[in-house]
């Protein structure tokens, strides 16, 4: 039982990391609040579902269109909404949260909830690892999130756009003097975050089904991982996913499923209270507490 729980905790960690990466790229690394992230996730999921089941578009093409649509939607939201309230952190939060609310509630108005609303798994097989059944989809998530985190680290440390992402979070004016167009970079960051949300939906949704409520869950989990790990750090995402992932799975097995959500929420509260910039965060202290 301990081994099985550990394996599933590891997979849970990968799922959390995958959910959080897009949000981390936008909010954690470039400091642009995008609280419509959960809505992007659900939007992509319903988009792919609709293209597969209603329009009968081939799988790969549908995925490509959904990712592109999310990239464009993210850019549009930045250009027409976020740009006008940029710099006022709370207006950014309220505006993006409003957009997310509108998208998610629109989907729940359509009432597309149920087991038939799900995406196909990549390969319908399962393996036995150390006496525990693990299906291929979960292994794929494990592999993909490891690759994606590696890509994210490489992207933010060794490409000029990635460095610019971190630059605008550290000091926007200094970034401007280095010739970084902060509006363009912020737009890219929202757009990339939305694109990654589509990929995350593609991998994670086959484990369950699509529901508008999922959007809020994804947002809270991504927020939890980002806050605990610390804004502006890739290593933090990994560490925080491990902490929350293992804590959730072990509480679920040994204490009770009611307590799973409480554990991750309590972890956020504790970290926010003691060290608001997170375990590995390197932000400016005076901006967060006084």
């Amino acid at each position, binding site marked *: 039982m301990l081994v099985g729980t550990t394996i599933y905790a590891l997979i849970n960690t990968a799922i959390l990391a995958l959910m959080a990466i897009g949000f981390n790229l936008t909010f954690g690394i470039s400091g642009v609040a995008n609280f419509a992230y959960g809505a992007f996730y659900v939007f992509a999921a319903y988009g792919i579902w609709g293209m597969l089941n209603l329009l009968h578009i081939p799988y790969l093409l549908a995925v490509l269109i959904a990712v592109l649509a999310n990239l464009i939607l993210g850019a549009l939201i930045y250009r027409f*909404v976020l740009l006008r309230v940029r710099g006022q952190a709370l207006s950014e939060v309220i505006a993006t949260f409003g957009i997310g*609310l509108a998208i998610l509630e629109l989907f729940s108005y359509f009432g597309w909830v149920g087991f038939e609303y799900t995406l196909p798994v990549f390969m319908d097989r399962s393996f036995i690892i150390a006496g525990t059944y693990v299906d291929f989809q979960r292994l794929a998530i494990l592999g993909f999130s490891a690759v994606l985190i590696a890509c994210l680290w490489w992207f933010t440390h060794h490409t000029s756009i990635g460095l610019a992402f971190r630059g605008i979070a550290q000091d926007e004016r200094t970034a401007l003097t280095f010739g970084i167009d902060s509006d363009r970079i912020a737009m890219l960051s929202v757009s990339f975050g939305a694109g990654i949300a589509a990929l995350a939906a593609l991998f994670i949704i086959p484990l369950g089904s699509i529901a508008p409520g999922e959007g809020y869950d994804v947002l809270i989990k991504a927020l939890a991982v980002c806050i605990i790990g610390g804004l502006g750090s890739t290593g933090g995402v990994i560490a925080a996913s491990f902490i929350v992932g293992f804590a959730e799975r072990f509480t679920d097995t040994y204490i009770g499923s009611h307590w799973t959500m409480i554990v991750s*929420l*309590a972890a956020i*509260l504790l970290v926010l209270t003691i060290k608001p910039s997170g375990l590995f965060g390197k932000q400016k202290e005076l901006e967060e507490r*006084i």
Partner: protein
Amino acid sequence: MKKRKERIDRGIKARSSDIFALLSWREMLYLAAPRLLPVIVCLLLPLLLGPYWQKVLLSVAVVALLAISWDILAQTGMVSLGQALFFGVGAYCSGAMNHYWGLSPVLTIPIASLLGGLICTLILLPVLRLRGIYFSMVTLIIPLILVRIVEATKIFGGTEGLSGMTPLPSTWFELYLSMAVLLAVLFGFRRMMDSDYGLVLKGINDNDRSVINAGINIYWFKAQSLFIAGAIGAFCGAFMTHVYMFVGMPVFALDYSILPIAAAVVGGPGTLAGATLGAFILVPMSEALRGFGGLRIVLYGVFLVVFIVALPEGIFHYIQRKYHQIERWVEVDK
């Protein structure tokens, strides 16, 4: 030829801003009208409306009070995304006192307001040092966690909640109690925010470090502001518990956090009157849109975005400007 918009105070505004206002009825009316209007509306509306809209008026009052409580916190530099915390704590306080000890609403509502304010202040005391968005995230999370705790530990009736509270004497009592509290809170705290005490609170929002420099303990003031806002929110919760005769997990719902923020943003933050105006616009509108079902919340979201982007000052400031000033286009000098 370039033009710019010029704003000039109306003559009547300049004349009525000192003692000479007493010289003419017109100027006294100009001064009194904006203050009398809400009083008259609040006192007459319960008489004019039918039973269904009277219930709507109750939720208008509750949302307005929550929005005022949000606004007081926001003016002190603490933007809360979880008014449901205040509402829920107040609701559970009065509910538990009424259910377990059988106290009458006359006692439970005032006690729950003060106790609720105190509990909320104590809950948020450890995060008083947090600024801006970090404080907001904490307030967003606390109601969520409280719901799960109630669900997991099954205290206060767990998922079932507590029912069978003592109802208030009559609908008229409910209506006029809520209206009286709304007016008292609106005018009382508007006055408070204009006093020296309010100036300190606003100063914390504008620049907390210079308030510290002035030798003022900002944490003490922030705690007081939290208590005030918490007590107003807790009153709403306690009041609604006795109106619905039920208290349960829905009191921590996201609605009680989103609606007041929407009302304050639409009405215009920073004046308390704007928050009230926003509630008087949004809640009836949402009732009128009841036929659309789930689309209502979609409209809320869209409203929030449109107002934040297009009219960030809110309706109240817009009306206030039109009332006090004339605007005209003038040519820009070279």
